[in-house]
């Protein structure tokens, strides 16, 4: 085997593009392994772990964070050369090509794009966090509404950007806003849901996805779904985007019912949002997950409704909008209950714990709320309570639910909704752990997400169950599948493939978590 390394200085490509390039290179004939990554310390460490980069590699030789590193391992020199050529072609194709006239080239800056296309009205920004605020600022100055997908933007920058947006009469969704549906178009990670009369303003991306999908399953649709970014309802940010979004939805003639979603807000901000909602006349469902809101906290108004989970928020909204209350296939039927009991009965004595591996932070939150009610403390990297924090996010402890979309897992790497690699490794790790009783996974479909997640995850589930069975264990695998039939991946196709691999599949996350909880030994056995 020959390994060859190429450093392209000052060439940036995003982690998704590089993941795709790495895969394409690895698929070439005679190529054993290939990687194309930005040369960050973290990425070089991964390459060392993979054996592609010597442990004694001189960091200077391999460039820095702004340099692109390509490594090919192949059987022959010819294969290496072919792969390097393919890499160059892949990168130059990305760089907008070289041929043709000047006018055909892609704009190199947002400012240039805005100048060339005066009709632009929204910027979708997903560059690395250290540079994202600058781009968002440019977009606002160019008069564009912004969806700022990037995370790792400072609080100070977020506040400044939101003040500027307000000043200019523009909507800034984010930072760390994964999802929005504007005028029927899904932005970022979003599902193909019908248009309808329910409007959403959400500080949670996957929360928005789950609720919009549940509404679609009930036969209704979404007017507008506005993302605010995860920190919007903190004291410092003051709910600026949530309040702006609420105003828009209250005035929007297409919207008849409003849903507000967030993790627990700062109390003062919660109050402000509730007051604003109370001032309006449209029925409004408020789900501040994990907070203990009751009627005494907020202003009382007959059209304000409080919900504790994403599921109950969706149910309430559907009811208020005049739809069917019972969501299809989602009640905990006797049949499902029996399946859970059977799974539990088949556990070996040492199999005690639920292990949740999530790509959606809010889905993880909701699952932990459900699980903890029945099972007690749930260890996590995004714990419900500080004392439940995992000491090492790479190592589960007792009942555990991990958000693999959290910063510590995504720096310099695609989100787990796009790249299943990290989760597949973790899934195998949990399956080998003899104390694992139940595996709980979310799979989020929709635009932007992996084109066929079941193709990667179903075989892994099958393999995990097989290995466990060989070791005398029955491993229950429960999947919370968030998506619609109209999504590019097709909900039914994904479901069938996962079910064939032996997974129990639910399209309601809270229900999946409930079944997981019922399939695990009760609390006292820990």
């Amino acid at each position, binding site marked *: 085997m020959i390994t060859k390394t190429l450093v392209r200085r*000052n*060439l*940036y490509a*995003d*982690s*998704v*593009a590089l993941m795709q390039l790495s895969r394409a290179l690895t698929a070439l004939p005679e190529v054993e392994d290939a990687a194309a990554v930005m040369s960050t310390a973290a990425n070089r460490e991964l390459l060392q772990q993979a054996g592609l980069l010597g442990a004694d590699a001189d960091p200077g030789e391999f460039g820095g*964070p*702004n340099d692109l590193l390509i490594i090919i391992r192949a059987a022959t020199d010819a294969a290496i050369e072919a792969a390097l050529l393919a890499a160059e072609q892949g990168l130059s194709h*990305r*760089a*907008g090509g070289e041929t043709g006239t*000047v006018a055909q*080239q*892609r*704009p*190199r*800056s*947002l400012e*240039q*794009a805005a100048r*060339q*296309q005066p009709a*632009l*009205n*929204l*910027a*979708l920004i*997903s*560059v690395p966090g*250290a*540079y994202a*605020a*600058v*781009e968002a*600022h440019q*977009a606002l100055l160019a008069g*564009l509404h912004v969806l700022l*997908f*990037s995370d790792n933007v400072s609080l100070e*920058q977020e506040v400044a950007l939101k003040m*500027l947006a*307000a000043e200019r*009469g*523009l909507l800034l969704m984010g930072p760390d806003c994964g999802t929005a549906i*504007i*005028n029927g*178009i*899904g*932005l970022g990670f979003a599902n193909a849901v019908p248009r309808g009369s329910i409007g959403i303003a959400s500080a949670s991306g996957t929360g928005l996805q789950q609720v919009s999908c549940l509404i679609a399953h009930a036969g209704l649709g979404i007017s*507008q779904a506005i993302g605010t970014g995860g920190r919007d309802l903190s004291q410092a940010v003051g709910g600026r985007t949530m*309040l*702006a979004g609420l105003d*828009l939805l209250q*005035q*929007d003639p*297409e919207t008849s019912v409003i849903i507000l979603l967030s993790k627990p807000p700062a109390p003062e901000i919660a109050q402000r949002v509730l007051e604003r909602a109370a001032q309006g006349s449209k029925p409004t469902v408020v789900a501040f997950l994990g907070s203990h809101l009751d009627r005494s906290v907020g202003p009382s108004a007959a059209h304000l409704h409080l919900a504790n989970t994403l599921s109950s928020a969706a149910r309430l909204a559907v009811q208020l909008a005049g739809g069917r209350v019972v969501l299809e296939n989602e009640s905990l039927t006797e049949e499902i209950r029996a399946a859970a009991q059977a799974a539990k009965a088949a556990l070996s004595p040492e199999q005690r714990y639920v292990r949740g591996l999530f790509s959606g932070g809010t889905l993880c939150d909701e699952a932990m709320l459900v699980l903890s009610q029945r099972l007690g403390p749930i260890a996590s990297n995004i714990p419900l309570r500080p004392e439940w924090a995992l000491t090492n996010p790479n190592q589960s402890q007792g009942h555990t639910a991990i958000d693999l979309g959290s910063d510590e897992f995504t720096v310099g790497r695609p989100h787990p909704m*796009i790249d299943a690699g990290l989760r597949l490794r973790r899934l195998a790790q949990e399956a080998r752990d003899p104390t694992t009783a139940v595996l709980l996974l979310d799979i989020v479909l929709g*635009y*932007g997400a992996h084109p066929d997640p079941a193709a990667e995850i179903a075989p892994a589930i099958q393999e995990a169950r097989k290995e466990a069975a060989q070791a005398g264990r029955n491993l229950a695998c429960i999947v919370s599948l968030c998506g619609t039939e109209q999504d590019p991946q097709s909900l039914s196709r994904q479901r069938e493939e996962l079910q064939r691999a032996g997974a129990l599949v639910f399209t309601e996350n809270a229900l999946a978590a409930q079944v997981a909880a019922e399939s695990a030994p009760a609390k006292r056995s820990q």
Partner: protein
Amino acid sequence: MAERGFLGSRLEVVNVGVDLFADALTAQGLEPVRVEWQPPAQGMGTELWATLSDPRIDAANERAVQRMLSARPKLVDVCPASEVVPGMSRQTILHAGPPITWEHMCGPLRGAVIGALLYEGLAQNEVEAVARIERGEIDFSSCHHHQAVGPMAGVMSSSMPVYILEDEVHGRQSFSTLNEGLGKVLRYGANSPEVLQRLRWMRDVLGPALGRAIRKAGGLDVKPLTAQALQMGDECHNRNRAASAILIRALAPFLVETSQSPEETASVLRFMAGNEHFYLNISMACCKASADAAAGEPFSSLVTAMARNGTEFGVRVSGLGERWYTGPAQNVRGLYFSGFSDADANPDIGDSTISETVGIGGFSMAAAPAIAQFIGGTPADALRATLEMYDITLAEDSAMALPPLDFRGAPTGIDLRKVVHLNRLPVINTGIAHRLPGVGQVGAGLVEPPLACFTQSLVDLAALVQKNP
């Protein structure tokens, strides 16, 4: 609160970052604009945020660049430097670029300095000249510190005739020497007797004749002349063929009217006609006056000078006072005259980058397709170079219309924030000097300033705005 028109109107999205999200929009029937995003230079996210989000800088830049655009420098006279250039003593030698000491000067600059000392009678020979310099008897200073600019070595001494330009709009003057032509000339470091002989003729004949003609003409507005030349294939840095011809046409009647003898006037006209860069020095002084008008605006990130002394490249910024931000002078990439190669080239030298500082030269290369071939490119390269400069500049100078771009104004006024943000350096179109004194020009090509000039100044500007909240 956000405007209502947003909801309900068709989304027109620009995607900056992960291509996948643009793909998802395409799948939904939109046609997103995809920005080819690259990280800023040296990953300077923090400094960029501090300076791009401070509205004081934008306001300051607007004021500064308007001053740059509104300058109307007029060529009014030619006089000996000692009579008009501030701070010019008999021992003063001005040079191109940021300040530099004798021991760090490159070959062509040293040659020119020695030539100037011989020409001024401050030394009888090279040995004596070097001895005087080493005894500290010669005061070196940057042209830029004396409202002046000079091409290549840019050496100016007290008795040299200089053009005087006056900008009545901002009440400023600027100065430059007279262009000597090509070949063995002082600005390329030559100091042989023929070079000194020509300098004396320029002092005794050419300068006074031009002065009389210019005065008789009532002065000459320079920017309209440059604007005409841009429409005739010049970019007025590396190609001055049209501009020089227009200048001769404008001055010829007055040269004749103020003639002291037909032979002398003929020699003046013949000299002017024999030098395709005759206009360059006037153009540079005009640019210098415009750039100086924009200097000293607190908080402004506008670049007001780019200059090289053959060793270092220096940049000055309107809001950062008199300081030069420097880095090593780069090698020019271009074509060499036959018989010369990279090995013969001196690093980038001269004040002529004042052209690009105010939007002509490399920035207006679109107007000069012929120059593209001269420096080893194509007309499409020239177009692209100009288009790219719009991304790092603050204004378009409608007075400098570029025909190939549908008479769009030249990209004018470099914003150092944009340079760092887009990691795109100003493009400079320049001649290549031989590294040995006196050989002259050996080629022409493109060069970029060192990135450090811009990253260092951005660090300082960020610190400045943070210190003054």
